[in-house]
């Protein structure tokens, strides 16, 4: 409060009204941003707004699918988990590390986790809408199966998204943060690898090129880019073994989230362009029905869920390889 009074005290001596208001506004804003109370309040507001947006956009009204209420409850639970995790982990990990790289990574990382939750929820809604008014032969058994499956999916989603949130918090917290240089390189290399993979496979399925030589080169790049990026973290970022290991983990997680968000969002925007992985075998039925599209989009998305689970593990393993090959810098 004393700093606000100090700003007001100076403002009284500024002759021009406009300059006086600019001084007051600039000073008040800067002091508010510096205030821990205001920053914490802003983070609570941001979590509530982000969570509300995700839940509202994925609400899915009017469906008779018994999985929908369960998915809704799971989504609300995940949103609450994301809002609580920073507060729960703060006594263990400490506040955000006092460097720009950690603050930026935490801000963008948490935003990325919310985006991930949003695209997964929207895709689940899109793919699941094929059961909106589904008539089963054995409705009782079908409803029980759908509900059980939805609970498992909701728990998996909470675990997956919550795990990424914990990783973002841990890699940027004062007691466990990566050094700024390693953090910057790890997230940068991970995001760059994801963008290249997305450019090569924007709709979730590999392309089929006309020449076999091109096809081999295309597939080689698909495999080599993520491996090279994850192995490179250690030698490039820290030239230390631990930089490779933990940096690789960060790079793998970043790559998986960025790739999943970009690709799942593109699939949602252009579902008709996603290759039909499943179609009706009957020659009498026209292909490309909404049911087939929804099922194919859901099937194509599964590999990105798997990548979200495997990305950090692959990053850890390849980062370890990179750390071992790094030229150790003398302390």
């Amino acid at each position, binding site marked *: 409060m*004393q*700093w606000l*009074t*100090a*700003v*007001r*005290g*100076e*403002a*009284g*001596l*500024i002759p021009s009204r406009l300059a006086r208001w*600019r*001084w*007051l506004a*600039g*000073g008040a*804003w*800067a*002091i508010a*941003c*510096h205030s821990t109370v205001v920053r914490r309040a802003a983070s609570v507001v941001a979590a509530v707004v982000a969570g509300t947006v995700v839940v509202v956009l994925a609400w899915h009204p009017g469906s008779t699918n018994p999985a929908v209420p369960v998915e809704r409850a799971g989504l609300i639970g995940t949103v609450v988990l994301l809002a609580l995790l920073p507060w729960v982990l703060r006594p263990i990990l400490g506040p955000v590390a*006092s*460097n720009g790289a950690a603050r930026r990574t935490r801000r963008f990382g948490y935003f990325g986790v919310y985006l991930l939750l949003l695209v997964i929820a929207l895709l689940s809604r899109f793919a699941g809408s094929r059961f909106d008014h589904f008539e089963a032969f054995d409705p009782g058994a079908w409803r029980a199966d759908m509900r059980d499956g939805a609970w498992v999916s909701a728990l998996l989603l909470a675990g997956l998204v919550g795990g990424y949130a914990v990783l973002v918090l841990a890699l940027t917290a004062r007691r466990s943060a990566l*050094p700024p240089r390693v953090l910057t390189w790890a997230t940068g290399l991970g995001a760059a690898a994801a963008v290249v993979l997305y450019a090569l496979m924007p709709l979730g399925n590999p392309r089929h090129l006309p020449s076999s030589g091109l096809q081999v080169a295309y597939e080689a790049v698909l495999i080599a880019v993520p491996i090279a990026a994850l192995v490179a973290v250690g030698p490039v970022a820290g030239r230390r073994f631990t930089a490779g290991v933990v940096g690789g983990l960060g790079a793998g997680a970043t790559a998986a989230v960025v790739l999943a968000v970009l690709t799942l969002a593109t699939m949602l925007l252009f579902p008709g362009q996603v290759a039909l992985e499943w179609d009706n075998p009957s020659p009498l039925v026209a292909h490309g029905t909404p049911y087939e599209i929804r099922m194919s989009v859901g099937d194509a998305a599964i590999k990105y869920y798997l990548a979200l689970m495997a990305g950090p593990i692959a990053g850890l393993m390849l980062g370890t390889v990179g750390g071992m090959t790094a030229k150790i810098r003398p302390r």
Partner: protein
Amino acid sequence: MTRARRPSPQTVTVLAALAAAPDSWRYGYELGQEVGLKAGSLYPILIRLTERGLLEAQWEDEVTPGRPRRHMYRLTEDGLTAAAQAVEAARPFIRPRLATEGL
């Protein structure tokens, strides 16, 4: 793993301006005018320096009707040492600016 953070060029400029007259109490607006910083940039620097014990602050004695009392700032002993080190470290980067200020 942690390193002492190098102060920003703006912080060095504020430290240099305060160190130029170490015994004088300085006012915020006047200081901002001198170093070319607006309130939005100046006050975070003043707050940080105060929190680190490099700057002492007190309210002016004189009470003027119609406006709050003003805050005055002066470097502490630690602040003077830190200012000398920061200016020295930053000299290669901001030599022209410091030279015009006679430092």
